[in-house]
């Protein structure tokens, strides 16, 4: 066990964990930030997606010892125009069904719109391909991302 300090959603948080603890479990078990979900544990499904320095990463496969000074953003801490546009589009389209994967879907969608203002269907497929949805809400995910892009002026 070691004391690890993480910068999460704009605040420093210290916790006692083994350095090889996946960031996901530091977030969920130690900090009670349970909006980030466990799906597969091997970075195949994207349910655990968070940002480190603005880049989407799979927190289930990232040991806390490797986060360093990276600024972590979880679904609880998203902000900015892309986040607002994605949230509004997700609500307007009623995207979620069971909802389990949706935190990760929304994180990846925000990251996509920060990188590409007006993604094509193909661009959406490439950016969102690592976020699986057993309910297959993909039709609405695609439509909501296009809506959010329009709202952002893309």
């Amino acid at each position, binding site marked *: 066990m070691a004391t690890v300090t993480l910068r999460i959603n704009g605040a420093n948080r210290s916790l006692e964990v083994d350095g090889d603890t996946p960031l996901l479990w530091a977030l969920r078990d130690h900090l009670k930030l349970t909006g980030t979900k466990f799906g597969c544990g*091997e970075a*195949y*499904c994207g349910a655990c997606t968070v940002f480190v320095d603005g880049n989407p990463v799979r927190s289930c496969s990232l040991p806390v010892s490797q986060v360093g000074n990276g600024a972590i953003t979880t679904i609880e801490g998203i902000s900015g125009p892309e986040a607002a546009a994605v949230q509004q589009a997700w609500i307007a389209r009623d995207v979620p069904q069971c909802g389990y994967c949706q935190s990760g879907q929304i994180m990846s969608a925000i990251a996509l719109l920060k990188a590409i203002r007006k993604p094509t269907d193909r661009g959406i497929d490439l950016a969102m391909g690592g976020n699986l949805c057993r*309910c*297959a*809400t*993909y*039709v609405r995910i*695609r439509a909501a991302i296009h809506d959010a892009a329009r709202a952002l002026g893309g």
Partner: protein
Amino acid sequence: MVDGIYNQSYRLPNFLVETIDTPLPVPVYFMRSVGSTAAVFFWESFISDLANRAGIDQYTYRRNMLSHDPLALRVLDVVAAAAHWTTPPAPGHARGISYNCYVGRGGRFKTYVAQVVELAPDGDRLVLKRVFCAVDPGLVINPNTLTAQIEGGIGFALTTALHSRITFANGVVEQSNFDSYPLLAIDEMPEIVPLILPSDRPPQGFGEVVLAPVAPAIAQALLQATGRRIDVMPLPADAFRR
């Protein structure tokens, strides 16, 4: 096990379904659509074979055998019209049509479903571009939720139709995660055209009903496009070679 067969809708003067319990070395249990995904894959593929044997168009053949059932005809006619079934597909493209009346909860509800799938060429493969889905689920309270079930149910069925292969070695399942047991991903999700028919019937069931017709419609389109008749699920990846 025989959902969608013992209670199938086609007018067949001589029709008998018998089942035999086969002890399996692994436990099996319900999945979404209960028995209908497996049973209707066989049943609608068998109907497709009969139509081909008779040399009759797949839509017309089904129509002829459902002429006693106006609600069945209605979903079939609506889906065929929306998909322009009577206009031949573009060169290299192919379509398949399928039908199922989902009889659920021991006969307490009946939901009518007809689908047309469209395959399009993409390099050396055929890909699923669009699925038309006509449904008569009785009175619809919330069309938005119902549409979500059409979209998601077809996507769920595509995971089963294309990916869900379980194999055993030395007494254990070989698949352990999404790398070996993939789910449908967004780039495989076709466009969905929902066609919700008005009805005076009370609300019927809907959560599982759109799944079963997906795989046999794809298999029928593949046969038309490639000459290969597929009778196993998941449909082998090389079945989509052009």
